[in-house]
């Protein structure tokens, strides 16, 4: 039962949820519903006012930082970098949790970085300065950095922001595949149409609570969508929404 107040506002009010290995979970809700705050609590970046987060049965705040980083990877919403690192340099930072302080890059680190870049189709621009990359390319580099950690649990905050349709769909399929391979994946996104067909559960945050936690077809019922988002949903028309495939 996790609660968090930011300033005068209680953002999270007794949220309970879990992500198991092999699951792809979509976290949705209105702007300001507390999705990013919840993700930050889940990675231990901020301490909840009440309740706690457990990773493998152990409080997340009691994990050693590097040990935790080897288990949980995170892609934040804002990934702006003020200096001109190359894409590959940024993805290589994902190997930090695996390396000792003075340890140079090992063959397995180089391989993990290459694999992450390949999975995100980012090899072509990996040697360019990140500042010259488009928003979508920067996003793919950020996701590749999270994958380079080889963590078992992936938390992603709006990972498809700025991505074109092809790469957004590729990412969703990749996340599904990672879940099928045994990773736990939690994605905060407004893109319900894109993620819902691929995920196992949808958690809807509303009034600071995990109001709905069900499989997608039940979670995104007409009543739930109207109550949580304040909009009416319609049966698909001939043109919209379309089902996208690669």
């Amino acid at each position, binding site marked *: 039962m996790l609660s968090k107040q930011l300033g005068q506002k209680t953002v999270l009010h007794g949220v309970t949820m879990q992500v198991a290995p092999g699951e792809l979970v979509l976290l949705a809700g209105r702007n300001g519903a507390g999705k990013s705050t919840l993700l930050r609590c889940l*990675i*231990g970046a901020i301490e909840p006012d009440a309740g706690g987060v457990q990773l493998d049965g152990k409080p997340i705040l009691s994990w050693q930082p590097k040990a935790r980083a080897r288990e949980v990877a995170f892609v934040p919403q804002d*990934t702006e970098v*003020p200096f*001109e690192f190359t894409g590959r340099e940024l993805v290589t*930072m994902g190997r*930090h949790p695996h390396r000792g*302080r003075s340890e140079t890059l090992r063959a397995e680190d180089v391989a993990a970085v290459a694999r992450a870049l390949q999975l995100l189709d980012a090899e072509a621009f990996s040697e360019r300065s990140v500042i010259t990359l488009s928003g979508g390319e920067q996003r793919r580099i950020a996701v590749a950095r999270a994958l380079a*950690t080889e963590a078992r649990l992936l938390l992603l905050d709006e990972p498809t922001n700025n991505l074109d349709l092809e790469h957004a769909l590729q990412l969703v399929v990749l996340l599904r595949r990672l879940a099928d391979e045994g990773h736990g994946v939690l994605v905060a996104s407004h893109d319900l149409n894109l993620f819902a067909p691929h995920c196992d559960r949808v958690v809807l945050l509303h009034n600071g609570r995990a109001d709905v936690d069900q499989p997608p077809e039940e979670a995104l019922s007409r009543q739930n969508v109207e109550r949580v988002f304040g909009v009416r949903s319609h049966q698909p028309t001939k043109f919209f929404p379309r089902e996208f495939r690669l």
Partner: protein
Amino acid sequence: MKRKLPFFLVAVLVGVAVLHLSFSRVSPGFSTLLEWMFAWTGATDAVTEPDQFVFASIRTPRMLVAVFGGAALALAGTVMQASFRNPLASPDIIGTAAGAAFGGAVAIVNDWSQVSVLFTPLAALVGAVGVTSLVFVLAGSHGRFSVTNLLLAGVALNTLFGALTSFVVTMALSNYLASSEVLFWLMGGLDNRTWDHALITAGGFVLFTMMVLPRVRELDLLTLRDDSAHSLGVDAAKARRYLVWCACGLTATTVANSGGIAFVGLIVPHLARLMVGPAHRLLLPTAALLGAILMVVSDLGCRVAPAHWNLRLGVVTAIAGAPYFLYLLARQRRGEQL
């Protein structure tokens, strides 16, 4: 090529250091320097005692203070820019140098160096850490430091501690020697540096650099958002505090021994990034070497300038650095990355 650059810069530094030792308005000159340097091999005749005194006790410590002081200021600027995720952060912009100057001035007018040569650097360190702590409080918001907040806090604290330093100097006006010493010191300069100054500057540089080097990858990670750094196993707030305190130490030991040296900590990291990119494993040695070269060349300029100019080192670095700072601001106005 990038990886070989530090070796090239070492060669340049050795070259300018030799020039620094040999060029002056007065003799001894280059040929005597060579004789002095190679006298121990027996290949050359021993130099006269006065010449030996000039090289061993006057010019060498001065050159070493320039080398280690310039390297320390450049490292301090590089560490601060990464730690604050802000290319305009540097000891003289955010007030660290002003705090160190205030602490140093208090120590000089009270003649604390008579008690121990370490007292002036320690007072400078207390001033630097104190002012930087205020920057953390005034400019930080949830661990983030915007350009605007840093510059506003820097302007406020530079003005405040500049005024306090002036107040300390005016209070000491009755003591002409002490007040003139502080005034000259505030303008930055390496006159009359002894082996004590050289050892303290070198010691501070080695100590704080050794504290920074094991955390070099954390500097890279701090340039990401705090949440990203945290998710990669770095406690961003803790790492930032530790590294900025190290930068304060580098600044304080230099300011205590060289006075106010403007802009080295700001412009050298930018020059180094242009040469080798932002990854700190290569950036730190490059910045340190460039800082040392800049400081040695600037001091050489002071030494060969006409004596009646009384040209101060801080004046030379400011004249070189201010236009570059304005260029950076112009770039940022155009929306370009710094």
